[in-house]
């Protein structure tokens, strides 16, 4: 009975800590509309929702080193830096980008548009400026390819090469998408046989619809790039203001080159007037404008029919630089926002029903003492969520189940204690001795069982990922708050009341 004042003081302090750390969560998720800065301040202190509740994507990327020289972990570090920059510019709230093993990167992005995010991360964004061969040379080479396959009409190459070629908007040549495989096979063979000179190559444009067909333009370009993406100082996305109908309403990218590169660009453009300079992104020809005059200021545009968000993402990617090697998505877990919302609602409803039942039962079965245990239980839940928020822990769907299990464990502790007190009372002990013996005898069992569950929690935390870690964390914090609430708080309150009101009959 000693220190009862101190113990009650600690209980009050716990209540205050619990409410203080729990408040931002309640405030954030119950208010409909909040000013932006207040919302941001609350977000920092409120409970953090996992990807499975908020929606978002979890990606594990692996650096594909098959065609790239270099140490995988160096490539990984560089790729990670670039991805970080891209994501920072894209603006994701609390992204997580981490190293995993020697060649892997873990990326977690809450609540983003899946496709855009994938495009932003996975795109290599290797930009090259390449000069095009002139039209005469191109048509000579096409004729040479025709000759190469003449008389060798195997199943694969029945038609002459030139018969696949169609004219796109008069200035360009292209192919129908259905012929893509044949055309690619033919050009590959032609390249190997030296019909296409080794310093030139065919590259395709993006897929587009032209006169009701799916087509791709194609170009004969110099293999060696005049300039690459390293030359870019800045990239902006801007709406198209010009007169060409095909670009109306679309956006384009304006590139600004670094000083050195701008000088080089000026000399290239000066020497190649009336030739075409193709802008190639990840081996796809974005556009191939004619050089009409020398361009001294180091400015270039990528003209494409970009949607505004597409243009914005492309500008981000170009500013952040190219990835040093391709990245492969080896694991993806995405949860749409709708499923996240449903999960929260259902999880909370289920836990709530469970909690109400437990609380009612405790009250009926153990009467006033049950009420004290219920109080401790609420404090437990509030402290658990509060501590989880304060330590930036994440609440996941299994985490909600973890809270429900914690409730179960808390109730178990109180049942152990109360059954014990009843036993002591039955053999004729006084109320105060019964309480004190009940607690001390039940304590070891409660402690041991919590410790073993914490051991499981630690194992889960170490081996688990994402949602499971959330579960392990809630379980561990929950079991510690359990020891505090179900044992310490319940006992302090029971002691306080039995002492203060000279209780002669314990309602338990």
């Amino acid at each position, binding site marked *: 009975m000693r220190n009862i004042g101190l113990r009650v003081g600690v209980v009050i302090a716990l209540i205050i800590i619990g409410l203080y750390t729990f408040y931002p969560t309640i405030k954030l998720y119950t208010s409909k509309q909040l000013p932006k800065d207040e919302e941001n301040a609350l977000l920092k202190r409120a409970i953090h929702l996992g990807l499975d509740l908020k929606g978002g994507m979890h990606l*594990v990327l692996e650096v594909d080193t098959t065609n790239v020289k270099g140490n995988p972990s160096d490539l990984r570090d560089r790729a990670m830096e670039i991805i970080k920059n891209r994501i920072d510019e894209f603006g994701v709230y609390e992204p997580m980008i981490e190293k995993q093993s020697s060649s892997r990167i873990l990326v977690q992005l809450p609540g983003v548009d*899946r496709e855009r995010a994938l495009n932003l991360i996975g795109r290599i964004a290797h930009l090259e400026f390449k000069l095009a061969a002139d039209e005469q040379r191109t048509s000579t080479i096409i004729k040479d390819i025709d000759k190469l396959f003449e008389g060798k009409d195997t199943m694969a190459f029945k038609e002459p090469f030139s018969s696949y070629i169609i004219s796109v908007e008069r200035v360009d040549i292209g192919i129908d998408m259905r012929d893509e495989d044949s055309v690619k096979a033919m050009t590959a063979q032609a390249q190997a046989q030296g019909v296409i000179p080794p310093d030139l190559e065919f590259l395709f444009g993006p897929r587009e619809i032209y006169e009701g067909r799916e087509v791709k333009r194609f170009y004969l370009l110099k293999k060696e790039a005049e300039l690459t993406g390293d030359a870019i100082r800045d990239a902006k996305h801007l709406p198209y203001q010009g007169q060409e109908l095909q670009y109306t309403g679309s956006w384009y990218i304006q590139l600004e080159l670094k000083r050195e590169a701008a000088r080089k660009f000026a000399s290239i453009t000066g020497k190649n007037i009336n030739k075409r300079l193709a802008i190639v992104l990840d081996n796809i020809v974005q556009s191939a404008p004619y050089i009409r005059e020398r361009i001294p200021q180091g400015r270039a545009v990528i003209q494409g029919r970009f949607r505004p968000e597409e243009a914005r993402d492309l500008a981000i990617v170009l500013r952040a630089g190219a990835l040093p090697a391709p990245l492969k*998505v*080896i*694991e*993806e*877990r*995405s*949860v*749409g926002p*709708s*499923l996240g919302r*449903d*999960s929260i609602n*259902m*999880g909370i*409803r*289920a*836990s709530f*029903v*469970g*909690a109400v*039942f*437990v609380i009612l*039962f405790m009250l*009926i079965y153990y009467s006033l003492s049950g009420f004290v245990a219920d109080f401790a239980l609420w404090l437990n839940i509030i402290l658990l969520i509060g501590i989880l928020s304060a330590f930036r822990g994440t609440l996941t*769907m*299994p985490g*909600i*189940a973890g809270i*429900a*299990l914690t*409730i*179960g*464990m808390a*109730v*178990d502790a109180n*049942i*152990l204690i109360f*059954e014990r007190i*009843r*036993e002591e009372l039955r053999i004729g002990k006084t109320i105060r001795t019964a309480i004190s013996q009940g607690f001390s005898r039940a304590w*070891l069992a409660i402690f041991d*069982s919590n*410790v*073993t*569950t914490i*051991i*499981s*929690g630690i*194992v*889960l935390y*170490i*081996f*688990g990922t994402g*949602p*499971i870690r959330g*579960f*392990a964390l809630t*379980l561990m914090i929950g079991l510690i708050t359990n020891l505090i609430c179900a044992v310490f708080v319940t006992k302090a309150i029971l002691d306080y009341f039995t002492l203060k009101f000279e209780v002669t009959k314990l309602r338990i």
Partner: protein
Amino acid sequence: MIELIKNPNLNFMDWRKYGYIFSGTMIVLAVLLLIIRGPRLGVDFSGGALVWVKFEKPTETSDIRISLGKIGQVQASIQKLSGTNEFVIRSVEKKDPAKFGEEVIEQLMRDFSDNPPDLRAKETVEPKISAELTRDTIYAVLLALLLMGIYVWFRFDFRFGAASVISLFHDILITISALVLTSREFTIPVVGALLTIVGYSINDTIVISDRIRENKKKLRGRPLRELINTSINETFSRTILTGSFVIFTLFCLFFLGGPVIADFAFTLIVGLIFGTYSSTFVVCAIVVEWEEKFPKKKK
């Protein structure tokens, strides 16, 4: 004062023979089930892709199959979540799951443009990742079992430690077979549930063992079997009360928690029932058996 169970005096240890028959049958059935049917592995452990979509308007599995047929995916498994307009599509081919996922989403968006599907979730796991996950999971479960055993050994004695580990294997094996029986998928959350069962089942064992330790002093000289029986009886009301509480909470999660949590809750329910049962009929029974065959020297 309400009391559901008043001073029980049941002869649990005399019934342990029935326990052996029951547990033995369950284990044999479980092993047979595992061999004949095998566990249904989710993409976490098998590798592959899973695409979960929800349609606005009523849609039939056959419509989706036709749509997927166009991209050569007639074999993909399509599961309609009962009572909803939601479908879970899984790849059969394990190779290149990312591509499968993208193609399926693209094709569904194209074919159902008047009834656009909402992407609820997507999981793609390369086979090499799933192999790693499987290995890590097995290690995690074994490690948890071992740590539990060591803890019980350290807090009580070696016999209880060993018996606890055996009973944990028993609980996990039966729970897994219940998953196989109900064709539930084996996923990471399910493994999380299995590890929780490990903690919970041991919890129950500890409560009884703790009583035994306490009664050892009180009832000096009595045979272990009687000691254990008394202890089980003394903790019986707690066992039943707590057990029914937790199970009720889990039923709430099972019925109200939505599809994501249902399998998780199911695993816990089965595991909890067997975990509670095994504390008495496996752990205590083994310890009693052990003592009767190889009595400890009296100090």
